[in-house]
């Protein structure tokens, strides 16, 4: 391609561009990764306190809850759907975990309580999945309704007071203990989940069908795949991640905070999209999602360390997101994928 030609690029509609581009997923993360490196390097140079083992662990810890949500959201977005309920859904799962595990309520043994908390997330996913796949409610609306309902329910069930896990010994260790020295367990859990999610998305039927449904639902159905039932399973899977995030959150705060959660869904979705998963479905990358989540956490952490006033932090994060996604598009266009 000559320089002359580059300037002559006709104005192709970008949405189609995005739709048209594809290719081995491994390439997609490259730029998000590049952005992460650049941001990291910048902060490291700008402030000596940034690049310490401790702070890196901090960043990963900060990324782990949103990141876990984002893993689940990756599956939903791969189908061409969206999940707005993960933020308040996570909170509801925290509350339910407290209900199951604390002495003030049911007081089941901790592992059982935790498992039921995760299962409750899957239940939220089931409701979303049925609403989307069986009742035909568009995912945006189905999960928006669930977002509001979960917010309300979390408050109702907890009576709008934080529920503490003081009666559940060791619960705080789930997120904050360190099986690996100096690395909080939440980080380990997040990374293990990420590996699992990567395998599930790339190598199992549920992942494959999520991508197929996102790419062409009708064709998938005509190949004899029961898209309705798979869609439900995919939402259940996404919900399970929400449940795990809820437990991690509760463990980290050693309490269920019922008013929390609104806004986390957008952060999770942003992480997914920065990571190269297409909102129109059919294309998804877990590695990208992880990088996206870490990028966002790094930005917040670094800007705070630099003591940038909070209002400017917001502007900076907004602009970095735009630049990262734009640069990713440019790179893909260069590679002739557009």
């Amino acid at each position: 391609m000559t320089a002359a030609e580059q300037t002559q690029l006709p104005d192709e509609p970008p949405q189609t561009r995005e739709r048209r581009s594809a290719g081995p997923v491994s390439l997609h993360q490259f730029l998000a990764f590049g952005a992460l490196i650049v941001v990291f390097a910048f902060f490291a140079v700008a402030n000596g306190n940034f690049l310490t083992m401790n702070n890196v662990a901090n960043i990963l810890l900060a990324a782990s809850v949103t990141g876990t949500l984002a893993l689940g959201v990756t599956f939903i977005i791969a189908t061409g759907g969206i999940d707005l309920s993960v933020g308040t859904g996570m909170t509801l799962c925290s509350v339910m975990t407290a209900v199951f595990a604390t002495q003030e309520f049911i007081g089941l043994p901790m592992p059982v309580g935790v498992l039921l908390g995760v299962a409750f997330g899957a239940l939220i996913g089931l409701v979303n999945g049925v609403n989307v796949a069986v009742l035909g409610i568009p995912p945006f609306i189905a999960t928006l309704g669930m977002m509001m309902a979960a917010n309300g329910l979390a408050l109702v069930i907890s009576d709008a007071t934080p529920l503490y896990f003081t009666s559940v010994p060791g619960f705080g260790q789930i997120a904050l203990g360190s099986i690996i020295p100096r690395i909080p367990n939440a980080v380990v859990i997040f990374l293990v989940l990420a590996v699992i999610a990567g395998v599930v998305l790339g190598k199992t039927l549920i992942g494959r069908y999520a991508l197929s449904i996102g790419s062409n639902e009708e064709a998938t159905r005509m190949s004899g795949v029961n898209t309705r039932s798979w869609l439900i399973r995919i939402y259940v899977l996404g919900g399970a991640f929400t449940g795990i995030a809820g437990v991690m959150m509760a463990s980290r705060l050693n309490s269920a905070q019922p008013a929390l959660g609104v806004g986390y869904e957008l952060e999770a979705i942003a992480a997914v999209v920065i990571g190269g998963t297409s909102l129109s479905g059919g294309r998804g990358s877990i590695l990208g999602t992880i990088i996206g989540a870490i990028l966002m956490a790094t930005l917040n952490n670094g800007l705070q360390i630099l003591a940038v006033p909070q209002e400017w932090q917001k502007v900076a994060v907004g602009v970095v997101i735009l630049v990262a996604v734009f640069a990713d598009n440019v790179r893909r266009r260069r590679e002739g994928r557009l």
Partner: protein
Amino acid sequence: DDGGGEGAGAGGGGGGDGEQPYVAIISKGFQHQFWQTVNQGAEDAAEELGARMTFDGPDTESDVEQQLQQLQTALSGNPDAVGFAALDSEASIPILTQIDGQGIPVVAFDSGVESDIPVSTVSTDNYAAAAEAAEHMIELTDGSGDVAVVCHDQTSLTGIQRRDGFVETIEEQPDMQVVDVQYGGGDQLQSTNITKSILQANPDLAGIYGCNEGSAIGVVNGVREQNRAEDLAVIGFDSGQGQIDAINEGIMDGAITQDPYQIGYQTVETAVAAINGEEVEETVDTGYFWYDADNMDDDEIARALYE
């Protein structure tokens, strides 16, 4: 436009104008324990005084519009008095004027309204309370070193007063300085992450202060996760199980609490008095307390703390 309720046949549950005095309360929130405790106090007062009350508040303390909308809607229920905790007192003037025009008494609570419409103001002096927090910070740090603030929000009146009362008192100290003020929206997790970043950036920090319950919990978590409880002075605001535990554990040195139960209680009490045409105090100070490991079990203090 009073006397609107025509009974509406079957239901009839709404109006009930004649018998019970009805107090509509519009607070600054409902999702947090502080407001729930205000609600509790108000409910108790209403029950004791034989009044009916409703309690609503916006989703966040920056949503002025939602709050005014709720106030407007509350008027449709034909209240006999209104309790109102203005997020922005100036923006509420038009609707307060309308309420005043209808002859409905307004009791301001939590923070005042800069107008003579409210018959009474039931509140805590947040600025003074924050200044007291600063005094304790000065004491704990022996009057020297850097301190930081994690606040819930930078635009609401309480947010501003609790920040400024603290910051301005600290800045009067020659050897002390507020190196960073960050805002976490009252979200515990976000406040935790912010605290950790602040500690990371300022390894020599001497003290840190959280402006409300969520922020304070976040500060405690951050300090705990960074293992800095030993060398840091940690001060919180409001109460709740999390802060009480943190004080018992020795992570938090102490906190300022208002008396949300009393705020709610006195608001309704004052409103009912106003409905009955009784004379009411122009201001009712519900006070604030410094509490720490030493005085937490004192009767007077324990009553003001909620779990």
